[in-house]
């Protein structure tokens, strides 16, 4: 089995892959990157919290035209996971507005996004339809 590395440090791999947020201990605001202070309440203490893996598609676009090197078309969206907004591609679905619908239930899935010269797979994430379609 090839070695794996997460595409981003807030994706935790393993038996139950999930995203990890930095949560402000004072107000509960969540961030996927590091902050010197909470942008909402200026608190400076954060704790790592797992983010759920099921959510609702709150918005999306189907990108047909992107920079060189970016494969198109792809679906980019915002998933509401129990009040935590997650930026993600919507995967394992035909990239057209007949299939991708606002409000659809989705769940986290991982995928190999590339392999480097050392044979290491980069593992990314997306959200896929959670209901049979």
């Amino acid at each position: 089995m090839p070695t794996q590395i997460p595409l981003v440090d807030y994706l935790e791999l393993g038996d139950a892959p999930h995203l990890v947020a930095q949560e402000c201990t004072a107000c509960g605001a969540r961030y996927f990157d590091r902050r010197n202070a909470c942008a909402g309440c200026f608190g400076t203490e954060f704790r790592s919290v797992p983010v759920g893996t099921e959510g609702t598609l709150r918005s999306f676009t189907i990108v047909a035209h992107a920079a060189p090197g970016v494969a198109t078309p792809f679906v980019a969206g915002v998933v509401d996971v129990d009040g935590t907004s997650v930026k993600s591609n919507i995967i394992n679905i035909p990239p057209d507005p007949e299939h991708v619908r606002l409000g659809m239930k989705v769940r986290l899935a991982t995928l190999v996004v590339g392999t480097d010269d050392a044979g290491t797979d980069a593992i990314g994430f997306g959200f896929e339809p959670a209901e049979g379609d």
Partner: protein
Amino acid sequence: MAADDIWILGIRMTKFGKHPDRDTIDLAAEASMAALADGGVTMADIGILAFGNLRGPSTGQMLQKQIGQTGIPVFNVANACATGATALRTAIMAIKAGECEMGLAVGVEKLAGAGLLSGNAAQSDVNVYEPSGRVGEVAPLDGRIGTVTMPGVFAQVGMEYLYNHDYTGAEFELFARISQKNHAHSTLNPLAAYTKEMSLEQIMGDVMIAYPNTRSMCSANCDGAAAAVLVSDQKLRTLSARQQARAIKIRASVLTSDPWQEACQVLPDVNTLTRAAAKQAYEAAGVGPEDLDLVELHDCFATAELVHYDNLGLCAPGGAVDLFESGATNRNGNMPVNVSGGLESKGHPIAATGIANVWEVCHHLRGEAGDRQIDGARMGLAHVIGLGSACGVHILESASA
């Protein structure tokens, strides 16, 4: 007149479009000299220059060398797509602070053929993965975790509005019809980059950029400049009757950034700061949306225009679709929006936009807009937003009001 009022004495935009033989300084100089002439003053009268040219290479000092060097302070400002409004606001603040009696604000950009405004850089994977950057990424993220392209970001902004308000209609067609309205408006604007009426079929059948935005639903990249001369109330009183009659009163000048909101780290929040700017502007002016005769808002994409109807309070909360469907935002409706053709057809030379939309409103308030004149226009609002984010709102009123 009130002692602390600030007025627009002269204002002008160049034709927006392709200017292959002229550089940013040529365009900025044309707009500046035209604005000075419009106001009946010269560089000798100007006490501050605020200059915006987001993508370079020019500065206010380079403009001075072209039109007049008097040693006045120059502020080179940058604030994404709100750069022009920020230049305007900077000059207004200087006059308000009593630093000078008259200021010149200029915005210029050369963008013709620039492609996507963001996410335009080619990206490729490295040979051996090594985490780097703020989220320890091992490979480029655009296209792998969402999109950074402006058409894609603003597509999501519009779609989110529909989701939040349980829209069940045909979304693609809805946004395309907003674009159709603005393209129709542009046919009356000789300074617009594109002045062709477009059918719904043409718009929906155009090249898809980021669903639901096709190419003709995106702001047009083009070249252009705009400039404005600002003056204090006290100074205006010393000028001629004609200058006083054509002066436009700035009833409100507001600049905001986005306060923290739960989702703003994953999708830029263009709503909260626009709502805040509108609220502050209406309060400062002591007026409401019902007092406006026309609005120029930041339709960088068709999907953006819809949400700003609501953000600027032009409709009841959640009522943006109903407002549009009522025809109110057509030039013959009771809340005309983007009678210039908007960014989708007039064009969007970034730093010029936040002054050019003020020019459009002033043009109507002075009764000088010719074929596209909104009859009897006395008060108007100009709005811009730059991602990141920055929002500028100006409420303007004719001198005779």
